[in-house]
């Protein structure tokens, strides 16, 4: 068999895996790989910081459902990527991250730009590899893609010593990856499905509690069908938003720390909680013993370790969410016990109760003349984009307002760092999503604090022609921490006041982008309209009411029914 160079084999393998776009930053250890990359048809987006490369690949992956790919060089290149790898790990996002490594002979020698990235990323990757034998290079890459995308997805890192990239090897023929030690169970157990469906028919006060697993497995249609046919209200985690239409009358919006009153009350009073692709995170459950205390719990999840981790589960179904929900729908299609009209009627008093809660305390905010309310900005973004933009967020108040007030009707429209809560995620993720969907409207909802964490990626957006829009909800504060300080630390605003904030309009211009500012409510709509009509990167700087808070709010450690309201 003919031999080829490691770098050539990597490119060929990436192409076989369907990669036509990746993100990265070159350096000594990967210089040979870049030499080959620029000769290929794969498009490479040069970022300005390695964290941006991995976030962009992550944004690409969340928006498309495909595996995102990033290339980083050894040492600081690799360590700069760690936060972004951990971000993807916490939200189960499929990535393959290729890092350069010093030549094999120098490993362990404290060589220039050497770091044990496999050791560093072991707890924040689904799996990782150091390729030592050139003949293992291609099989390892194939395994990496397989692992990243299958089962509960996640980032996989492959560390490539410089001399392995440069060595000659035999390119093995493509064959399906089989791993003795990794066979995730995707098919639901029919007996468990049967038990779960019967529980749904018996329940008087059921609630669907839906997480990111529904988005990852593409189960939104099956979920919507199930919820509507059984007349069950649906609440979503931050990661689950868009898994069920946000404007549907059955939608309760988000639950948990900043969830809606109706969502948290419904879960607390429910007699059947159907958790789908969600993991009972502390931001969702609040005080554990007060979470859904009266409910029998069904939990559908592909990861057995998620089941009964925080909350005891009565009916576990370890399976892919889409297949499990399809099996439940199949059971109802065939069952004689299921009388559609009766079930709808049986659940109606509960639906009425939920509606009453919602009418009593809807998501709301106080108007204040011409002062810009951040919630109003999000509502206006929703209105002017027809609710169909791809929204990325930074982390903090901006993220929660976006989650509360932009009603997502489709999956893969909200890209946000849920588990790790990484400030600086939104802008590079928006670039990744925009590169996947050049025609889409992609908006990064940001705060004046978090946008500065990866502001350098403005240059990337300009260079690769990604006309992302950035809406900065500017209050000159690290708003979420300030809100906690206001409520629980005696208004002692320790280090949350941003005394110096750049002139974002001038900053946009400096990068060759467009900068717009709105200081009054009346200016909000014209600014957004102008931004949406501009075929360039735009920063919209909204001076919002400074001490606006995110409500409802469940104080940390409290029961989710103990909400602070507007």
């Amino acid at each position, binding site marked *: 068999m003919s031999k080829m160079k490691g770098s050539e084999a990597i490119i060929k393998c990436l192409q076989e895996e369907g990669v036509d776009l990746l993100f990265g930053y070159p350096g000594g250890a990967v210089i040979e790989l870049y030499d080959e990359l620029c000769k290929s048809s794969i498009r490479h987006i040069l970022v300005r910081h390695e964290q941006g490369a991995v976030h962009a690949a992550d944004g690409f992956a969340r928006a498309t459902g495909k595996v995102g790919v990033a290339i980083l060089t050894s040492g600081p290149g690799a360590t700069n990527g760690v936060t972004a790898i951990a971000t993807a790990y916490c939200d189960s996002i499929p990535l393959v991250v290729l890092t350069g490594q010093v030549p094999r002979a120098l490993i362990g020698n404290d060589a220039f730009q050497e770091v044990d990235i496999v050791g560093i990323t*072991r707890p924040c990757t689904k799996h990782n590899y150091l390729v030592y034998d050139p003949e293992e290079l291609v099989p390892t890459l194939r395994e990496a893609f397989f*692992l990243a995308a299958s089962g509960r997805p996640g980032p996989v890192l492959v560390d490539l010593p410089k001399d392995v990239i440069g060595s000659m090897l035999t390119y093995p023929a493509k064959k399906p990856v089989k791993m003795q*030690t990794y066979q995730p169970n995707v098919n639901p157990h029919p007996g468990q499905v049967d038990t779960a469906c019967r529980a749904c028919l018996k329940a008087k006060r059921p609630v669907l509690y839906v997480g990111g697993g529904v988005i990852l497995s593409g189960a939104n249609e099956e979920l919507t069908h199930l919820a509507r046919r059984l007349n069950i209200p649906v609440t979503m985690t931050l990661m689950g938003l868009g898994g069920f239409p946000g404007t549907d009358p059955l939608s309760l919006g988000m639950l948990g720390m900043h969830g809606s009153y109706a969502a948290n009350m419904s879960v607390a009073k429910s007699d059947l909680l159907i958790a789908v692709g969600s993991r009972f995170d502390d931001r969702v459950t609040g005080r554990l013993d007060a979470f859904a205390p009266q409910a029998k719990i069904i939990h559908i999840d592909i990861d057995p*370790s998620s089941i009964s981790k925080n909350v005891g589960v009565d009916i576990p179904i370890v399976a892919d969410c889409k297949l499990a929900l399809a099996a439940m729908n199949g059971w109802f299609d065939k069952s004689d016990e299921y009388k559609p009209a009766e079930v709808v009627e049986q659940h109606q008093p509960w639906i009425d109760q939920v509606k009453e809660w919602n009418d009593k305390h809807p998501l709301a905010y106080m108007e204040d003349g011409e002062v810009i309310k951040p919630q109003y900005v999000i509502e206006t973004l929703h209105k002017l984009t027809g609710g169909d933009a791809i929204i990325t967020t930074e982390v903090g108040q901006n993220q929660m307002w976006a989650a509360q007030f932009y009603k997502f009707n489709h999956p893969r429209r909200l890209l946000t760092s849920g588990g790790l809560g990484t400030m600086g995620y939104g802008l590079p993720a928006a670039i990744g999503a925009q590169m996947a969907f050049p025609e889409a409207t992609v908006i990064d909802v940001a705060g004046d604090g978090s946008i500065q964490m990866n502001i350098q990626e403005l240059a990337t957006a300009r260079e690769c022609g990604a006309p992302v829009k950035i809406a900065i909800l500017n209050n000159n504060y690290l708003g979420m921490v300030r809100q906690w300080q206001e409520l629980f630390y005696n208004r002692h605003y320790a280090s949350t006041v941003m005394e110096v904030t750049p002139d974002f309009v001038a900053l946009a211009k400096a990068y060759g982008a467009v900068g717009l500012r709105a200081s009054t409510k009346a200016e909000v709509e014209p600014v957004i309209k102008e931004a949406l009509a501009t075929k360039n990167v735009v920063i919209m700087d909204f001076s919002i009411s400074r001490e606006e808070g995110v409500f409802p709010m469940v104080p940390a450690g409290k029961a989710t029914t103990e909400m602070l309201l507007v």
Partner: protein
Amino acid sequence: MKHTLTVLLRNRPGALSRVTGLFSGRCFNIESLCVAETYDPQVSCLTLVTKGEPAIIEQITKQLHKLIDVIKVNDVSEGEFVEREMALIRVKAEASTRAEVLRIIDIFRGKVVDVSPTTYALEITGSESKIKAVIDILKPLGIKEIVRTGKIAMVRAPKK
């Protein structure tokens, strides 16, 4: 609530640190750990003693399963099993006590594996309680050094 887990894992570089990293990262407890190649050189067997409530043990087992290098996890303490541990004990053995040390080690069916004018090094194998008994009884004579392997375990074969 001690549990003895045996974990079969792929004999790959770093596989062991994935297991130990999991324990430290999630604040699970490790009492002892013993690892070596199995009959199949591609596979290592790790015997691990841990402590915790049933829910914690369940999480430990599930999290171990989730590691890509792990082939099989077995909580052997759920059923009948045999466990063994070996200890090497260097004990003072001066003229007045040399015979006494030999008598004790004979009772426990141990062996002398190293001799100096003033010490014996003893090898002793058995269950954790037997090792403890030997140590307790040798203590008054003057133990200078102990090296223990940690426990290894095997499920008993079904009797029918």
